[in-house]
């Protein structure tokens, strides 16, 4: 090979190598973001005595906070006797009773926290002290949850991180750790079936099966740091956070006053608590699955109201189903389903509103909506039937066209035969 060319190639390869080396160095420098300057991590890593749940993704580690923040000591010294000495402020593993206050050192200080998140809440410790967990801990019960029970110790991740113990989909499992443990919970005298019931409930299915993070987990009803069983007065408000109209109708109804008087648990009385099932129209009226008959007997006015509401809803459901079936037929036939689909949607909307109005326990109010829904159904059926009539007209047109085409085809056939005979 030409000597000059060899030199050029050599220089070229050297340049490429330098670029690759440079790029890799830059990359590895970027990777070495956490813990490299922290002697606690350096030594504990070398000695392979890092905590069992240690994670490099821990949010404190990722934001450059040292082990010192919780354990004290001097993270700059590689001398064990100096860095872990009481002179350097080393406290070792904090006592359970101290944990909330220790986290609160930073998390309750808005001036400190705002450098990470300007709108972050700083009342977690205050809420914790008001919670069942916090109160029991203050009384000396060290079995209850502290901050690390839910957030983990060395693997704390933000709530929006799917790997976090407090990510919406993971919350039921986090609470379950203690609350489903019969032995652990025995001394508290509360049930341990909440998780199993929740998993089967409409909320549990939505959250855990459909992974709909909008569905409520334990904390959405019980609170996070201020976790408490909701009292009788607050149940309606808790459900009303999402089911706004249902709660509003109920609170204005005659029934709300009766419930308050008899100290009944608002929504929970008919729908349950952890095991809230998907509602059905059969919950109203006099059927076996009706909840009305739990309190009302035949002959009472409320009993009859329940039956009338059920019948009114049933009538609209039957009418709606017939319109929805016709809509599918129209769609399948490739006909104009646009206006009809709007009418069917309106009927569906009326049905939903009528079902919500059930919480007024007022037959007249429900009837107004079911009547409105039936009007939409009539309109939809009319539009659908017009389209089906048009379809029949198209098919008749095709039949006539085919008839004429067949005549032409037959004529052509005889013409061809005629020509071929002449040939």
């Amino acid at each position, binding site marked *: 090979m030409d000597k000059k060319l060899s030199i050029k190639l050599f220089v070229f390869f050297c340049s490429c190598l330098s670029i690759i080396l440079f790029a890799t160095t830059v990359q590895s420098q970027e990777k070495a973001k956490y813990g490299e300057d922290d002697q606690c991590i350096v030594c504990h890593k070398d000695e392979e005595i890092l905590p069992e749940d240690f994670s490099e993704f821990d949010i404190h580690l990722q934001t450059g906070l040292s082990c010192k923040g919780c354990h004290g000591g001097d993270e700059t010294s590689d001398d064990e006797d100096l860095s872990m000495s009481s002179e350097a402020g080393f406290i070792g593993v904090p006592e359970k009773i101290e944990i909330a206050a220790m986290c609160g050192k930073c998390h309750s200080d808005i001036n400190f926290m705002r450098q990470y998140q300007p709108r972050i809440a700083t009342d977690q410790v205050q809420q914790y002290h008001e919670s069942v967990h916090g109160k029991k801990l203050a009384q000396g019960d060290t079995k209850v949850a502290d901050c690390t029970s839910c957030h983990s110790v060395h693997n704390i991740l933000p709530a929006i991180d799917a790997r976090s113990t407090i990510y919406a989909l993971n919350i039921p499992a986090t609470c379950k750790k203690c609350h489903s443990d019969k032995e652990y919970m025995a001394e508290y005298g509360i049930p341990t079936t909440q998780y199993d019931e929740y998993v089967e409930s409409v909320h549990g299915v939505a959250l855990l099966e459909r992974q709909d993070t909008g569905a409520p987990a334990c904390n959405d009803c019980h609170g996070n740091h201020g976790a408490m069983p909701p009292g009788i007065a607050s149940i309606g408000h808790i459900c009303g956070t999402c089911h706004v109209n249902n709660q509003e109708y109920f609170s204005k109804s005659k029934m709300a006053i009766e419930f308050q008087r008899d100290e009944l648990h608002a929504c929970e009385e008919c729908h349950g608590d952890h095991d809230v099932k998907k509602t059905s129209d059969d919950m109203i009226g006099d059927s076996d699955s009706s909840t009305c008959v739990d309190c009302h007997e035949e002959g009472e006015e409320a009993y009859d109201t329940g039956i009338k509401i059920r019948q009114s809803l049933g009538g609209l459901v039957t009418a709606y189903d017939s319109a929805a079936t016709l809509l599918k037929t129209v769609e399948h*036939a*490739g*006909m*104009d*389903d*646009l206006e009809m689909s709007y009418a069917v949607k309106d009927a569906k909307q009326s049905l939903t509103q009528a079902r919500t109005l059930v919480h007024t326990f007022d037959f007249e109010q429900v009837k107004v909506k079911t009547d409105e829904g039936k009007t939409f159904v009539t309109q939809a059926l009319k539009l659908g039937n017009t389209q089906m009539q048009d379809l029949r007209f*198209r*098919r008749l*047109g*095709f039949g006539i*066209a*085919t008839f004429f*085409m067949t005549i*032409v*085809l037959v004529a*052509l*056939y005889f*013409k*061809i035969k005629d*020509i*071929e005979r002449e*040939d």
Partner: protein
Amino acid sequence: MFKKSAEKSYNWLDDRFKITPLVEFMRHKQVPIHKHSLWYYMGGVALFLFLVQIVSGILLLLYYQPGVDSAYESIRFITTKVSFGWLFRSVHSWSANIMVFFVFVHMFSTFFTRTYSKPRELTWLTGSVLLVLSLVFGFSGYLLPWNELAFFATKVGTDIAGAIPLIGDPIKLLLRGGEGVTGATLSRFYAFHIALIPAVFTLFLFLHLLFVQRQGMHEPEFFHKLPENKKRMMPFFPNFVLRDALLWLLVLNIIIYLAVFFPWEIGVKADAFAPAPDGIKPEWFFMFMFQALKLLPAHMFIMEGEVFGILFFTLAGLVWFTVPFWDVFIKESMRPKIMKLFGISVIAFILILTIWGYLV
């Protein structure tokens, strides 16, 4: 009276354009009659369906509006509000698919009767280009209603094109008009579908028909060997043309039947941010390739399985389309058997993978 006027018009035209030699040429052109004569009509049916495409396509153009916010809506408008819009839209979609089917039938009948051999190599080649263009027609037209299935199928299709070594990325960029499938892709596919491909298609169709007319109908080997007095023939005009017309009319009636009783679906409007729905499938004529690519392992030899598959189909296409140039190297006595076996293997491969694709 009608006969007199027709004669007058003919004379007027003949006086100026000398069309008598053309009519005489057609009158003297003969079509062989034998047990495989049926296959002569397949190309004609494909041609008729192309004409149906032009007519129905022009009518759709009057109302169709390309654009992310208007394409789907305009198709909906055509099928629900425009008089007979439903008919033209369904006829366009059905006839497009049936046309591709008949182009395939025409190609395989030409292959098995070995019509592609000398002197018809260029007729075969132009026909091959027409087949590829028909497939591109289908691919570009599929996206135009801007529905969910078409959107994601185009995404997958252009991704496959992007996997071609070296030229894949520029091709993908050219097809999509950007990184993703967007309004820019729709505009491009629209331009390809109504301007670019029809222009190129018409040119190749003209050449294809010119070659067919110039060289006449192919005589299969067994027919060719017959003594002249034993060969049965029919004049191209009017006998064959009338038979063609009869078949075309029948096909038209079937298409209208399909349009009336099985209207082509509009589907759900495409949403770029929605997750891909289950059961994304390409059009049936791409299914065998799609299924084959799905079945390949992630890595094959020194390359990705997908790249291997693309290279395989490119090579296989080249082998298939250049058949007139290499089958002459096969020993003449063995040629019919080997080519028949080759053709049957190709059909079996396409059929099995297509059915497999729809079953899983």
